[in-house]
């Protein structure tokens, strides 16, 4: 149980006491701080900004990630929405900009395809970009593309997005079914190839079915708890306790998002977000809790967390909640590293 006399969290970096700010910086140095979900590369594809340059638009770029103390982030290659064709085209198109931004920003960031890479980035003071795909429609129904994506550096794939695809139902098309025959084969093949499974956007039954089949831990990269936020258009995006328990039993991590939309509360603040961190930690233990910002995915955040430079406020709020330093280090990154080490292997 967390402490009862929780102080109101700081809303600005300036409001952090100097010794608290120093403690947060020290904690950020103790692990690779990992954010399991961001969508920033789409803005590069759209010609709005480059990630190697500091921008005041959007929420994440390489300089701001380093400033906020973020060590690594799963950057998703955005797929045509809602149900497009030519997924491979979109992926190869984005890949151009991933390569070019990482090349131009080589002094700031690097592609990470292994835990060793993430650790090397931390040693070198660089930001590690992990490539992810948000939705198994990326395969265009072809299992053989999985090794090709792995060769490009993709290490995480969500099985669905909002809509049903060849693998399973999505949040907004829930028929109560589990994985399709193709989805089942993809889970097995992702295990074999060492690509982490992300269950965000899946249905309750889909998540449980995935966990029945997966030999490896899975993550739910960006979500909140349905037990605490069960109203509004996005309620079904939030994960139920049964699913949280199943992910924890499998050794996985639930990534929580600083997202007012998922809370269905336009005034939600950091303390409201903290309720979700405490809920998952109380339910299954802090070793199954992580961060999944969904930054540049386009949703309003609590005050102070408008972009990744506010990350110290989140860390400080975790300390306020009474999480121990080892627990905070796990939530910030250690828990994901454990999963990635198991899944990516070698």
């Amino acid at each position, binding site marked *: 149980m967390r402490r009862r006399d929780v102080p109101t969290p700081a809303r600005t970096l300036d409001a952090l006491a100097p010794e608290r700010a120093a403690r947060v910086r020290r904690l950020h140095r103790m692990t690779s701080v990992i954010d399991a979900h961001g969508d920033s590369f789409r803005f590069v594809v759209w010609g709005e900004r480059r990630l190697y340059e500091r921008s005041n638009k959007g929420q994440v770029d390489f300089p701001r990630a380093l400033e906020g103390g973020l060590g690594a982030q799963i950057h998703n290659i955005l797929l045509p929405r809602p149900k497009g064709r030519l997924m*491979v085209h979109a992926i190869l198109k984005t890949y151009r900009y991933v390569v070019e931004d990482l090349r131009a920003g080589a002094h700031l960031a690097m592609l990470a395809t292994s835990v060793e890479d993430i650790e090397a980035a931390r040693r070198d003071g660089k930001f590690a970009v992990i490539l992810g795909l948000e939705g198994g429609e990326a395969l*265009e129904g072809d299992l053989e593309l999985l090794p090709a994506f792995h060769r490009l550096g993709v290490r995480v794939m969500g099985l669905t997005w909002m809509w049903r695809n060849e693998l399973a139902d999505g949040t907004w098309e829930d028929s109560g079914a589990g994985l399709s025959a193709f989805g089942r084969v993809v889970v097995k093949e992702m295990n074999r190839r060492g690509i982490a499974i992300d269950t965000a956007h899946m249905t309750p039954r889909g998540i449980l079915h995935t966990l029945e089949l997966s030999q490896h831990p899975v993550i739910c990269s960006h979500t909140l708890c349905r037990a605490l936020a069960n109203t509004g258009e996005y309620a079904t995006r939030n994960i139920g306790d049964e699913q949280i328990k199943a992910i924890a039993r499998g050794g996985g991590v639930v990534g929580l998002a600083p997202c007012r939309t998922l809370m269905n509360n336009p005034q939600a603040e950091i303390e409201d977000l903290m309720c979700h961190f405490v809920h998952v930690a109380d339910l299954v233990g802090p070793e199954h809790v992580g961060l999944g910002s969904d930054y540049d995915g386009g949703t309003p955040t609590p005050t102070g967390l408008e972009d990744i430079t506010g990350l110290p406020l989140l860390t400080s709020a975790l300390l306020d909640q009474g999480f121990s330093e080892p627990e905070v280090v796990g939530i910030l990154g250690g828990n994901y590293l454990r999963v990635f080490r198991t899944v990516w292997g070698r």
Partner: protein
Amino acid sequence: MPRASSESPNFNPERRAIVQRLHRTIPVIDGHCDAARDGDTRGRRTEASTARPVDIAGVLQAGLGGLVCALGVRPSQYGGPAHAVLRQYDTLMGELDAASQLAALCPSAAAIERTYAAGKLAVILGLDGGEALEGDLDLLHTYYHLGVRIIAPVWWWTNELGGGACDDPEPSGLTSFGRQVVREMVGLGMLVDVAHVPERGFWDALECADGRPVICSHAGVRGAVGAGTDAPGNLTDEQIKALAGTGGVLGIDVSRTDLKGADSTLSKLVRSFAHATDLVGAEHVGFGNGCGGAHPGAEAADIGGFPRLTGALLDGGFAERELLGMLGGNFLRVFRAAWGG
């Protein structure tokens, strides 16, 4: 210059020593090989398909040092063209991973030389036909990042870049997108290949390449062996001169000169080389398509391997200096000029 010879190659020990020395001096480069493309219709090799993996050991044995492997799609292939090409890329890269002791992907002339010095086969990535761009210049940059260094804008079929010989009796030239791609390629440091490109597209490509070297990775010499049966046919003298005028190279197509083993056909090949070199000089001529398609190495083996071809050219009166260029030096020069570094 009495080059064309009807004699069979004379493999006396002295001759053999010269040929071996030439092959040791320069990486022998074949400007075109289809093997990477000829998987099943989904771009993946299966037990049932007739396609074989690139036979790297066989290709090395045939006396080659460098091989341009072209990816490309047929209209019926699975998913979109980019889907098919991504699969072919993954298959080829998987084969190179498995044969890392024997071959390496080379995106630069320096890498070709390093790989050759290490006794390995230098594999250069090409793309037959611009279908895989799916009409999007961004994908050109992606393929460049993946290591593709040579693109033929049009293969058999009409695509977004220009008219094709296979589905159009009077093929158009390059489209505005095709012209844009060629200009972007030149700026990016990719080599434009006019093999298969019908004549109007040929002249458009040369115009858009803006004086930078252009190659024809594999075609026959019309002046020596006629038009050929394959559309769009062998290059005319005028085309060969224009290609040479860019500083480029014509890879004389072994299969298209109808060479299958017999010495008489080998001499026909020598005649093609003689015709082209008399026309534009030996520095604009190389080998193309010597490894065949589905059975790489088979055709080179049919003509007795590249050393036998080298021997025949030596008999044909070519100087050693000229031969070094034709064997690989000319392609290497153009690769360096087009790719930079």
